[in-house]
C-alpha cells in the first residue's frame, strides 16, 4: 500500500519536473512525443531514454573536453562531436541543449574560416 503511494508520488514529482522544464523552454514538443511512447507495457521508456542520453552526453562531453585541449583546435572533430550531441538532444526534446549546440556549431564554423 505504501509502496504504491510512493510510486504515485514519484510519478507526480516527475511529471511536475518535466512540466516545469517544458514551460521554461528546456524541453520541447519532442519530449511530449517521448512521453506518448510510454505505456503500461513499457512504463520506464522515458527514463531509459533519458538515462541513455545522459550517459551518451557524458561520453561526448569528455571527448569534447579532450579535443578542446589540443592545439591547434580541430574544428572538424569538435563539430562532429557537437553534431552527435545535437542529434541526441533533438531526439529527446532537449531544446536548450540543442540551441547551445547550434551556437557551438556556429563558432566552429567561424573558427574554421579563420583557421
Amino acid at each position, binding site marked *: 500500500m505504501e509502496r504504491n503511494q510512493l510510486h504515485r508520488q514519484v510519478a507526480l514529482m516527475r511529471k511536475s519536473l518535466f512540466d516545469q522544464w517544458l514551460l521554461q523552454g528546456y524541453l520541447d514538443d519532442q519530449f511530449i512525443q517521448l512521453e506518448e511512447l510510454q505505456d503500461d507495457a*513499457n512504463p520506464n521508456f522515458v527514463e531509459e531514454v533519458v538515462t541513455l542520453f545522459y550517459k*551518451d552526453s557524458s561520453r561526448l562531453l569528455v571527448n569534447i573536453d579532450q579535443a578542446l585541449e589540443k592545439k591547434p583546435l580541430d574544428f572538424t572533430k569538435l563539430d562532429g562531436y557537437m553534431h552527435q550531441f545535437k542529434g541526441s538532444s533533438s531526439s529527446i526534446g532537449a531544446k536548450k541543449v540543442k540551441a547551445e549546440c547550434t551556437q557551438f556549431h556556429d563558432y566552429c564554423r567561424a573558427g574554421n574560416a579563420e583557421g
Partner: protein
Amino acid sequence: MSTAGLVSRRDCSHQLHVLAVDDSVVDRKFVERLLKISSCKVTAVESGIRALQFLGLDGEKKETAGFDGLKVNLIMTDYSMPGMNGFELLKKIKESSTLKEIPVVIMSSENILTRVDRCLEEGAEEFIVKPVKLSDVKRLKNILTKGDKGQNEEDPLLSLPLSSHDLASSSTSSSSPFKFLDHRSKRPRLQG
C-alpha cells in the same frame, strides 16, 4: 530464390521487419520504440558495416547462403554516421542484386536539399528529417503494406491522399509540415 524485400508469404503474422541503422544509441532506442509501437519487428544496429553483415553482405559481394527467416522489409538508416554513412550504405544495398528491392529510408537531422536529392536519386524511398515521428513510421508502414500487393508502375506514394491534416497528425510539431512535401515533390519515379 531470394525474396528479400517482399513480405514472406510463409510469415503468418505478416509483421514487417525493419532494420534500423544509427550510430546514436539514443536515436536507436527511440526509433526502435516507434517501430515496436507500430507492431514492427525491429533489428537495430549501430553502423553500416553491421547492417551489411546482418543483411548477409559481409562487405563483400558474396551473399552467405542459407540466410533465411530474417527477411528485412525496410531499412531505415541515419545519414551521418562515422565510417560508412547512410548514403554509402544505400548505394551498397542498391548495388546488390539480392538486396536492391528492399526499400531504404534515410533519416537525417539536416534538411539539406542536395543531400535529399542525392539520396532519392540513388534510390531511397524517403528522406525523413529527424526527429522521426510516429506519424512517419505509420505512413511508411501503410506504404509498405499497400505496395506489397505487387510491384506496379503506379507509385503508391503518389496515390496517397496528402493533406495538411495527414501531415500534422500526431504532434503539434514546430517544424513545418511542408518538409514532407518538399522531398515528396522531388521523388523520382519508382523503379522506372
